[in-house]
């Protein structure tokens, strides 16, 4: 049972890693002027909800399977994701707003955030991998 949980988490984590990489690539495309803000934001906004759900599922799974440490590790990131999604002003077109993204260094902060998340997911990835190993050896 334990290993099933971790294998699922591992797959989910892979998906999140891919998503982070996609965010980084798209944002850097915008930075380099390869795409315009409108298409960049509509591309990214599509994936905000899947990301929130994907991460929330792992977090809840860890809580259910009583892996406290991993749950607490995931909790702040999941909370931040949900907070960010809820706090979008009613007039904005999503977390990534084409009219705002070039102002006040938002592009940079989005980029930074995506980088941090990538690092975090990589860390989680290896943690799950290690846990699976533990499970299978024990």
């Amino acid at each position, binding site marked *: 049972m334990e290993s099933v949980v971790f294998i699922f988490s591992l797959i989910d984590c892979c998906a999140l890693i891919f998503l982070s990489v996609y965010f980084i690539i798209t944002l850097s495309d915008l930075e380099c002027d390869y795409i315009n803000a409108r298409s960049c934001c509509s591309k990214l906004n599509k994936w905000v909800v899947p990301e929130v759900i994907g991460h929330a599922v792992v977090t809840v799974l860890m809580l259910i399977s009583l892996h406290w440490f991993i749950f607490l590790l995931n909790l702040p990131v999941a909370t931040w994701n949900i907070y960010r999604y809820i706090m979008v002003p*009613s007039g904005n077109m999503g977390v990534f707003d084409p009219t705002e993204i*070039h*102002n006040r260094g938002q592009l940079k902060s989005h980029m930074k955030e995506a980088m941090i998340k990538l690092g975090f997911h990589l860390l989680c990835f290896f943690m799950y991998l290690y846990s699976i190993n533990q499970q299978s050896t024990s």
Partner: protein
Amino acid sequence: MQLPSGYGSHPPNYNAPSGHYSQVPNKAAASHLDNQYRSSYYPTYYSAPAQNVMTPPVGTSVLNTQESQQLYNKTPPHTGGSAEGPIQGAISSASYLHTSAQQSYSAFGNHYSTSVSSSVASQGFPLNSDHYTMPVVSSAVYPNVSYSAAAGSVYGQAFTSQSLPAVGQFKETNTFSSQSTSVPHSLQQHVPMGYNTTLSTVSSAQSVQDNLCRNLTGSVAKVNNQINAGGIDSSQPVHPVSQSVLFTKPGAGTAVSSAVISSVRTPAPSLSSQPRSSPSVTQSPELALQEAIDSSSTTSSASPVLNNYDALEGGGYPEARSVTSSPVPAPSVPQTSKASKPFGYGYPTLQPGYQNAAPPTPVQPSNSGHHPGFQHYPQQYPGVNQLSSSLGGLSLQHSQQPESLRPVNLTQDRNILPVSSVPAPVPNLNSDLRKLNCSPDSFRCTLTNIPQTQALLNKAKLPLGLLLHPFRDLTQLPVITSSTIVRCRSCRTYINPFVSFIDQRRWKCNLCYRVNDVPEEFMYNPLTRSYGEPHKRPEVQNSTVEFIASSDYMLRPPQPAVYLFVLDVSHNAVEAGYLTIVCQSLLENLDKLPGDSRTRIGFITFDSTVQFYNLQEGLSQPQMLIVSDIDDIFLPTPDSLLVNLHESKELIKDLLNALPNMFTNTRETHSALGPALQAAFKLMSPTGGRISVFQTQLPSLGAGLLHSREDPNQRSSTKVVQHLGPATDFYKKLALDCSGQQTAVDLFLLSSQYSDLASLACMSKYSAGCIYYYPSFHRSHNPAQAEKLQKDLKRYLTRKIGFEAVMRIRCTKGLSIHTFHGNFFVRSTDLLSLANVNPDAGFAVQMSIEESLTDTSLVCFQTALLYTSSKGERRIRVHTLCLPVVSSLADVYAGADVQAVVCLLANMAVDRSVSSSLSDARDALVNAVVDSLAAYMSTASNLQQSMLIAPNSLKLFPLYILALLKQKAFRTGMSTRLDDRVYAMCQMKSQPLVHLMKMIHPNLYRIDKLIDESTIHVNDRVVPQPPLQKLSAEKLTREGAFLMDCGSIFYIWIGKNCDNNFIKDVLGYPNYASVPQKMTQLPEVDALSSERTRSFISWLRDSRSLSPVLQVIKDENPAKTDFFQHLIEDRTEAAFSYYEFLLNIQQQICK
């Protein structure tokens, strides 16, 4: 950056440009070139750039004649002489004085009374202690001081302003003007007018037809709406007189007359702001006449359709103009005058402030910042030769710094306002560069001395940013037609005056420092028709130029001018009666809409359904097509809704005449704005263009419907102001869609109730449109708003417009732009997408210093605006600004431009209040003052900590911030409607600096003693120059009359005991009691004071694009509160007085 050695040694008239910059050597004679020049540069009949004293003659006189005519017709001479006599009001009832303000200042009375040498007792206020009268004394003194200083040294040669013009000159003026009137007469016959002669018949049949049409509202009911071409409802508020004035005084005609007049006075009208190049004041009148007629015939023939903007955008190349240039040669024109004529256009560095006034401290002749132009023309000015040569040796370090860094004790020095308008600081550059630099009207930086590192900038606690007005109306502008536009190969910077030529063949980019090759064509200089002098090309001699772009700069063929009007016709709209005004203005200006033969126009109206109008050529009358399926809107006949203006003109006129009455009996209260906008977008998307939306209420049907969010009880809340942001993203998405299809949406909101401007404004904000708001608009109940709409529309419809524009702002390597303010969509990191650009749009950007600028002494900024003119030409307007880099904190403060700083802070505060909260934004504004002053005081070690000291450059900073805090946008505690607040915020984001400053800190003048004031001469008028007054009720004596210039509105406040002669002469009423409550015009009375007042007001009006509404205010007038809330130095229930604010700042600094 070093200029090549040969740069400075060119002959004095090196700058004689011709209008013709083609690459092919021109065989034409010099006189031919001269003619072409005149037609190719922006001709004289364009409205004045803001704040330019020497306004181009024509805009002025056009306004004049209209104004005076209207005055004549609307207010008949008042003959009923009631009992005249001075009303000696009770002196003790000075109720409007804020006594609290007095008390707060009274502690400091000693300072002021001692500083005044002769204390003049003010008559009306026994309460006043001596120090209140001091400003009066000083105001009487200052103009004289400044004048003797300015005129005595330099200006006396260029202006005849101090003394009255010679009698002979007057005579000449008269003869010329009479001669010139013959030209407008001949033009009159071309005016296609006449519809206003058939204004009487009411067609009763028409309303029946309308009803029929309304009843037949099917899914797609196609109803012939019979519009009686001749029958126009007589209930329309026709202004026959003003109309006919407008048309019979066409732009070209008046242009002629005033061109003649002005060219008699000074040989080159436009250069009077730069006297250096007008050596021949004594030029013979015959010569001047010849020139004038020469130019007038050019202009009049250039614009036979009487479109002011035709010739404007007509361009500067001979293909378009060769027909029109009149072949009158002026062989005897001396070379100097020819050389001088084109000059002086791009660098109105001599602001009004420099010419007629000086800062309260006496002007030191060595202050070279005030007359930068003179140093380069010692040959032409032997009189000032000595002065300028001595100036040449001085670096500005010595002369400017002590003045702008002079410590000012804010709590003690009460007279910090300059006598006249606040001048823009002049960058501390060497004289060559300063002369070439971009005009501060177009391009301003908050810090004219750029700090070397971000650390230094952080220490200074001042924001770094640019304030741009890139598309403003320019009187003259070099237009360059060239097959290759020379640009840097790596950063794509346009070649500009601040590049350096390494040798004949190579130039070094001043932004990225790449070395580029000079193309072969660029070696030829069409000005001097010489080869091998690339540094003398016009691109390198002017920091503001316009290129005619080749097809490389087009993604598609240039679009035609397309205008779509989307009009609300619900019950609410019909009730307010705006349709009449809009249709009337459109009818009047139909011929003046900028465009060419391809111009297209269309109309959509909407209530709960959307109505389209088929105006296809060949129809006998316009067809109305109603689409009631608003959930899935479609275009009934996509081809015939946007029609060619010229081919379908009669149908359009029919429609405009009928529209105001078509919906008179409507009972439809809903408004389906969203679907109408979607339809408009569909209609416009193939071409792009401009959508003008007129909306009168909250949209209540279909997509984009909104709900009321305002809680009236929260209007005066001091805590939280909610709902400053949009409620839905519908309008934002629509705007972005429009922007993608090169369509801008302009919003006219004429509502009496809350209409959620915060949401609606998005449609204009992100599509580069503009927003107009008329609170509690009603045609008859609120005539002031109606007049404002009329004037705004006139300007809106006739002003220049650029389509499918993009703007890029580049800056020297090391600087980077991180935030943009204004109405546009930022498409990529530094590219602003502007579907439309208009001359009234301002922009701001914030910058940071990414890399240290230690290895450079100069930084440059360049904006390039690529647009399609209404004539279907692709053009690029380039402005380049060059500023020095400094390494010490004191130098940063010395170069601070307080107005630019305040405007940038206002923009930032708007962002902050939307993204965070209003109280945050207010705190940030106060902190900006506290931090910067604290930082300054910590640098100056010898200052006492107990005093509040500011450098002279920032002495107005606290005052302006206080004014900002009392603006509608940011004020708390006073009842402010949400829409009013949001509109004020929108204006802050999109207004150019000059307009915004008037809004933030209006100018107050005392106008009942204008005869005694010093004067300047503008064209043929004598314009008095009253000193600026503090915005405080203590200045309003009951014996006086005051004019407050708020940018878009003039208030004239009349004191109760105002001199009866003034009331009689200027207002045209026998005494104070008989002055009516709603007075919006000054009559034309044949008296000196009346003439002076009117010339002063029209001079103020000329300095801006929009002609402001005038409002006369008596004591018991309801508009009184509007007037008094602008007195920002006074205390209100909810806000500090200026003095209290200073004490508050001081406390926070000491903390």
